[in-house]
């Protein structure tokens, strides 16, 4: 039992040390011990290595929500030398099919495993039902078969996370074994405290990079991960019931998720008495949110982090102490991760900006992934544009984020340099939504804009020029367009409001002038 990945070895060793400890629990009472995590992942890894429907080395698609089986499947893929692409149930079937096709176009026939019971139909590949998966995981593989597993190599793809792409097609970020090992090494060190076993509550589904935190930081340590099942996700009262029973010590989520909970006055120390830390990432963290968390949970430690999917997960981290909260100024996203270079360059000249000035963030180091799956041009632009003088032959990623270094060495975030936005922590390319709208014969032109309130993006508005085929412009057309979007993109990407126009204002390049349009909408 020796795997190439230090991370996989660490989890396996932990499973042998504490087989009876709970690795995963959810709000439905489903549980999985470390012993079960090992036996299930070993059995599935052996099956993946032997089954004739599974092509060696082709990424496996894992569909479902955050569940014990999802964790076991991810580990099984790594043990059997397959990359995995986790897809959450928030993705509609057409989006799942598009992702499967992308994988097959480049690598050949793949297999989709339902890690939770699902009624997903029309996916163009072999599928393993949840029942079949349970059967496979319950098998007892022969020891020589388990011993023969050595898993993904250092420079193999460990996982592919699909995010919103600006042309309307999802793009898959390829993260290597080396990236995960390096991230794990740093995070375990940076997030070390003098305490015993933890219970992690992480609201983020496995299809988002922030979920890697409890995997590499928790499972490796022998901690327990607590997740919400579907019912608890949609109803605040069941969510609160589950949370209060969870014994969670460590909270990981977007600031929006915490703000949602803070809106209920019962969300406090008495409600979650074991909570010691909150790690928030994925969007701008406001001082008022941290202050309210500290008021409700006396003694709690709050951390802010930042990092793009393309560089595994967090690349900055710092504690938000009382001193940072004193003046109500923008909060830093943290100190740079050790082992990586976080460079601030002029986006036009690609030269370093003077100390303290803002520019575009470039990340250089081992946590940067290989690129976008099957998209060499996009990969070139984002992963190969950092000048060689700064990279030292290491991988690099151009983030599109505007940042600066404060005098104390912490980094401050100022927004995007392109049309990517974060809405409640979800990463969205506005062009993705626009392409989906324009694919309808009812739409001639479309431009999607974020609407800001209180320093954060509140919702999205779609400005649409309908074609002659659209009989009317009111709610009936909005219903049709929203239904179309819901069939093709996750619900969090569907704009809340629709405005119908005769024309879009254009800039000198002939593109929609977003500034003028935003003013027009605000005046209406």
């Amino acid at each position, binding site marked *: 039992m020796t795997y190439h990945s230090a991370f996989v070895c660490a989890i396996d060793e932990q499973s042998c040390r504490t087989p009876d400890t709970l690795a995963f629990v959810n709000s439905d009472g489903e549980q999985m011990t470390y012993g079960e995590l090992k036996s299930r992942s070993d059995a599935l890894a052996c099956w993946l290595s032997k089954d004739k429907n599974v092509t060696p080395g082709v990424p496996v698609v894992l569909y479902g929500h955050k569940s014990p089986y999802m964790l076991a499947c991810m580990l099984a893929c790594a043990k059997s030398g397959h990359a995995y692409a986790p897809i959450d149930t928030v993705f509609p079937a057409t989006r799942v099919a598009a992702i499967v096709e992308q994988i097959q176009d480049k690598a050949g026939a793949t297999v989709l495993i339902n890690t939770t019971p699902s009624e997903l139909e029309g996916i163009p590949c072999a599928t393993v039902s949840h029942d079949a998966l349970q059967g496979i995981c319950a098998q007892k593989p022969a020891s020589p078969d388990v011993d023969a597993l050595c898993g993904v190599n250092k420079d193999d793809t460990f996982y592919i996370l699909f995010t919103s792409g600006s042309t309307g097609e999802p793009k898959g970020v390829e993260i290597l074994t080396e990236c995960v090992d390096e991230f794990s090494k740093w995070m375990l060190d940076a997030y070390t405290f003098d305490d015993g076993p933890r219970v992690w509550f992480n609201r983020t589904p496995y299809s988002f990079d922030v979920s890697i935190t409890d995997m590499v930081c928790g499972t490796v340590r022998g901690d327990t991960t607590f997740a919400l099942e579907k019912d608890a996700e949609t109803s605040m*009262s069941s969510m609160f019931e589950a949370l209060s029973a969870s014994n969670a010590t460590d909270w990981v989520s977007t600031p929006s998720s915490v703000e949602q909970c803070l809106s209920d*006055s019962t969300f406090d120390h008495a409600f979650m008495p074991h909570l010691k830390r909150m790690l928030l990432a994925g969007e701008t963290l406001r001082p008022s949110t941290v202050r309210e968390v500290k008021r409700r949970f006396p003694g709690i430690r709050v951390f802010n982090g930042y990092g793009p999917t393309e560089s595994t997960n967090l690349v900055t981290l710092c504690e938000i102490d009382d001193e940072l909260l004193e003046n109500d100024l923008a909060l830093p996203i943290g100190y740079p991760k050790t082992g990586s270079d976080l460079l601030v360059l002029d986006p036009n000249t690609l030269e370093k900006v003077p100390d303290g000035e803002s520019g575009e963030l470039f990340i250089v180091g081992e946590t940067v992934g290989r690129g976008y799956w099957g998209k060499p041009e996009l990969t070139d632009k984002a992963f190969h544009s950092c000048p060689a003088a700064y990279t030292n032959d290491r991988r690099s990623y151009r983030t599109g984020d505007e940042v600066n270094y404060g005098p104390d060495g912490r980094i401050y975030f100022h927004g995007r340099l392109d049309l990517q936005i974060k809405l409640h922590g979800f990463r969205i390319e506005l062009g993705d939504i626009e392409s989906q709208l324009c694919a309808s014969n009812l739409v001639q032109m479309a431009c999607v804009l974020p*609407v800001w309130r209180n320093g954060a993006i509140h*919702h999205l508005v779609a400005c649409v020029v309908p074609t002659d085929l659209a009989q009317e412009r009111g709610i009936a057309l909005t219903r049709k367009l*929203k239904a179309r979007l819901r069939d093709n993109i996750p619900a969090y990407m569907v704009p*809340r*409001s629709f405005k119908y126009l005769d024309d879009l204002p254009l800039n000198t390049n002939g593109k929609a002038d977003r500034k003028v349009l935003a003013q027009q909408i605000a005046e209406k």
Partner: protein
Amino acid sequence: MNDLKSQIIDLVVDISGDDDAAEDLDMDLFEEDILDSMAAIELLVAIKDNFGVSIAPTELERDQMNTVNKIIARVSERI
């Protein structure tokens, strides 16, 4: 009562950013993507600020406040 009704309609339109919310007071605001869970909470906070009626987000299930008319009924029974 009419005043309360129009104020609540204004709140829903303002928070959702969607004028369509005022079109049909029995329309399912969640089904039509006019409100999502974040906006629903924002609405409860606004109701507390404007009418002094405190409804905890954990107190209500979605189907108890999924139309403008149901929201008006909830608020007026407590005002």
